[in-house]
């Protein structure tokens, strides 16, 4: 596709912008041009993009460039920060009544995935100890009621149906039914509609007035294009929705609709549909979505992680120690902890510039339990031993092995590999070429 290489082009742009202390207007403009395309390509609404890019520009020009980043990366970092803020930052919870039953109403366009989502939500709530009741109020689409019945049976949740009667009556009757059968959550599946359809929209308003739901969830297909804004605006202005469920996120849609919807309604996205199976409904993570929309996951994740986890001062000290080959087991432990904070190791390794292309790392299966053992071994050493591993003789090794619940052989291996690593680090700081040999350190994690 036309923008498959967007991330690559962005990298190109960023390369051009190097080594400046503060972001100039030109830096920002160049990087933002790519960002704008990326967002449009992800189907973020044009107006939302325009406002967004403008805001980022205002914030970015003149900002100091972190020494660990290039100006281009710095802009992307700001873009991502702003995107995440816009998306809502934290996971938004489902609105439930303080006194049951809670009433949840599912609304949305035809084919967005309301019925499936209703059933998934019921399953999720059931797993949390609730006693949900599904209500079949889509009386228009052929076999919609049957579909909900079948799904209800699959997940062992009762389905309330009155055939093809007035949906408002169905909703009311369902509420009293729930009271009599001690269901504490009622999930109403309404008919899908094109939002142009005034009659059906009116019906939704009537259902809302009749049962006063605690939560109205707008179900939005993540593949929706520029129209997502109008859809969300219409539903929100008529029904005052409580949140959004973004469906079909297991596809390759970048899901710009999420940003559009959030931007125009201000309502949080609460759940994401991630599979056709009944367990495929997850709480929505705004931060993850931000990078998906931007489509620069790898670059972004690296930037984010570099900024958030590596303390700059410590990094400088470490670089110095590396040069002087003063790298100790204490430093090593610290490195491990930072690595752990960054996330799953195999992903981190893949993201490091230069590392991604290294073939031997491609299918590297990093076993994190090994990391824990290494940590345990180092933690069982005295500070003196950590700083000066040469003093660790036979009896100290036995003690360390016992203390860490490992075997002497493992302690031996760690010490040997550490010594190799230290040698390697010395080479590494000597030049790029020797990076290929960096197997020593990584073989620790296997």
């Amino acid at each position, binding site marked *: *596709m*036309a*923008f498959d290489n967007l991330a690559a082009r962005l990298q190109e742009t960023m390369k051009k912008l190097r080594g400046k202390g503060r972001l100039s207007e030109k830096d920002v403009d160049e990087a933002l041009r790519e960002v704008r*395309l990326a967002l*449009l*390509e*992800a*189907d973020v*609404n*044009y*107006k939302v993009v325009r406002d967004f890019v403008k805001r980022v520009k205002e914030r970015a020009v003149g900002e100091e460039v972190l020494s660990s980043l290039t100006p281009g990366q710095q802009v992307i970092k700001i873009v991502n920060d702003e995107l995440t803020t816009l998306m809502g930052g934290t996971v938004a919870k489902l609105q439930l009544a303080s006194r049951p039953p809670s009433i949840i109403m599912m609304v949305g*366009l*035809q*084919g*967005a*995935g309301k019925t499936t989502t209703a059933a998934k939500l019921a399953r999720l709530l059931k797993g949390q100890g609730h006693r949900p009741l599904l209500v079949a109020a889509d009386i228009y*689409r*052929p*076999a*919609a009621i*049957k*579909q*909900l*019945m*079948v*799904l209800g049976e*699959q997940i062992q949740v009762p389905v309330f149906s009155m055939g093809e009667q007035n949906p408002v009556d169905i909703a009311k009757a369902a509420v009293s039914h729930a009271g009599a059968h001690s269901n504490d959550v009622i999930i109403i599946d309404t008919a899908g509609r*094109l*939002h*142009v359809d005034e*009659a059906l929209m009116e019906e939704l308003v009537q259902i809302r007035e009749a049962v006063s739901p605690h939560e109205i969830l707008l179900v939005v*297909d993540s*593949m*929706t*294009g*520029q*129209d*997502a804004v*109008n*859809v969300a605006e219409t539903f929100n202005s008529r029904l005052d929705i409580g949140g959004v469920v973004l469906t*079909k996120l*297991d*596809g*390759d*849609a*970048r899901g*710009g*609709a999420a940003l559009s919807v959030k931007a125009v309604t201000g309502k949080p996205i609460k759940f994401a549909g991630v599979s*056709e199976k009944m367990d495929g409904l997850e709480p929505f993570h705004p931060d993850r979505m931000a990078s998906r929309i931007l489509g620069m996951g790898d670059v972004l994740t690296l930037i984010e992680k570099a900024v958030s986890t590596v303390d700059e001062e410590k990094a400088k000290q470490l670089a110095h120690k590396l040069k002087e080959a003063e790298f100790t087991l204490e430093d090593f432990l610290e490195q491990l902890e930072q690595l752990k904070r960054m996330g799953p190791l195999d992903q981190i390794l893949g993201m490091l510039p230069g590392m991604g292309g290294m073939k031997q790392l491609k299918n590297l299966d990093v076993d994190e339990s090994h990391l824990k053992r290494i940590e345990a071994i180092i933690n069982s050493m005295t500070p003196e031993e950590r700083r000066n591993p040469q003093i660790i003789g036979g009896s100290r090794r036995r003690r360390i092995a016992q203390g860490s619940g490992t075997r002497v052989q493992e302690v031996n291996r760690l010490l040997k590999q550490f010594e190799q690593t230290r040698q390697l680090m010395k080479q590494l700081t000597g030049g790029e070429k020797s990076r290929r040999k960096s197997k020593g350190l990584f073989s620790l994690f296997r």
Partner: protein
Amino acid sequence: MFWKKIFKRKDENKEVTEEKAAVQPDPKSSEPEEPPKPEQANGEEAPQNFFQRLKAGLSKTRQGFVDRVEQLVSGRKVDEELFEDLEELLIQADCGVPTAMELVDGLRDRAKAEKITEGDELKLLLKQEIREMLEQYAQPLKESSATPYVIMVVGVNGAGKTTTIGKLAYRFKQEGAKVLLAAGDTFRAAAIDQLKIWADRVGASFISHQEGADPAAVAYDAVNAARARGADVLILDTAGRLQTKANLMAELGKVYRVVERELGRELDEILLVVDATTGQNALSQGKLFGEAVPLTGIALTKLDGTAKGGIILALGNELKLPVKLIGVGEKYTDLRDFDPAEFAQALFD
């Protein structure tokens, strides 16, 4: 032969122009021969002819796009800023960035060649540009005298496959064809029932296995049943699937191969159903479905519900996939052959 009628109607439509639409109030002129059955009224109001209904169906798009083009160009001089604003509008209509740029480039060249300085004149040029772009890839349903005429319908979840099949079946039925619908969506709950309801409504015969059955087995039986029952048209439904699910796409390939093998020839049509409100992901759909099965064209649904629908341009322009059918309303007869000239006309008038 019912074929002639089906394909002839397309030609009639081509001639429909604005003037004709205005002086042709006869509601039945291009309606199907038989009046719709009462239970399928779908809230029908005064009957209109096809062109008027198309216009009505596209009213959202017209308001959302053309009216804004008008506002944009009126009273302005042609300059670079105006072109950029137009590009913005096209992107907002889901045309996608590359297609929008291409259209505006064409517009810029043309305006220069024809020495156009007034913004208002650009509107006509844009209409021509859009029409020409659409015409490159528009194609009617394939004509064939072989029976059964086989259509396989594929698409992502919720695109409107089953409804499209129902409407197609109605249309063939109206032309006097014997239609067989095959319930190849054995995955989604009640999908079989949904198609069965459509078959009963339009009077098509129906073949299905139970839920969870192998769709390839359904396809196998469908081809043989079509022969045994002497059906003129076989329409095969398939389960909605996201194009990124490799195993499901492989399943689709298998269904296709089974049909082809049993048929002993190429399928007549393999239509990808795309929801008109879809954004740029439609391109990925076209590409990946196209890798799984040899798509012959697109059926674009729910055009009446969106103010956008620019994806119709991107699909042709970037994937060279012809849009064959468009759905512009909920009525049975609202699934139409896609005619670029007519479409552009309805959009801009």
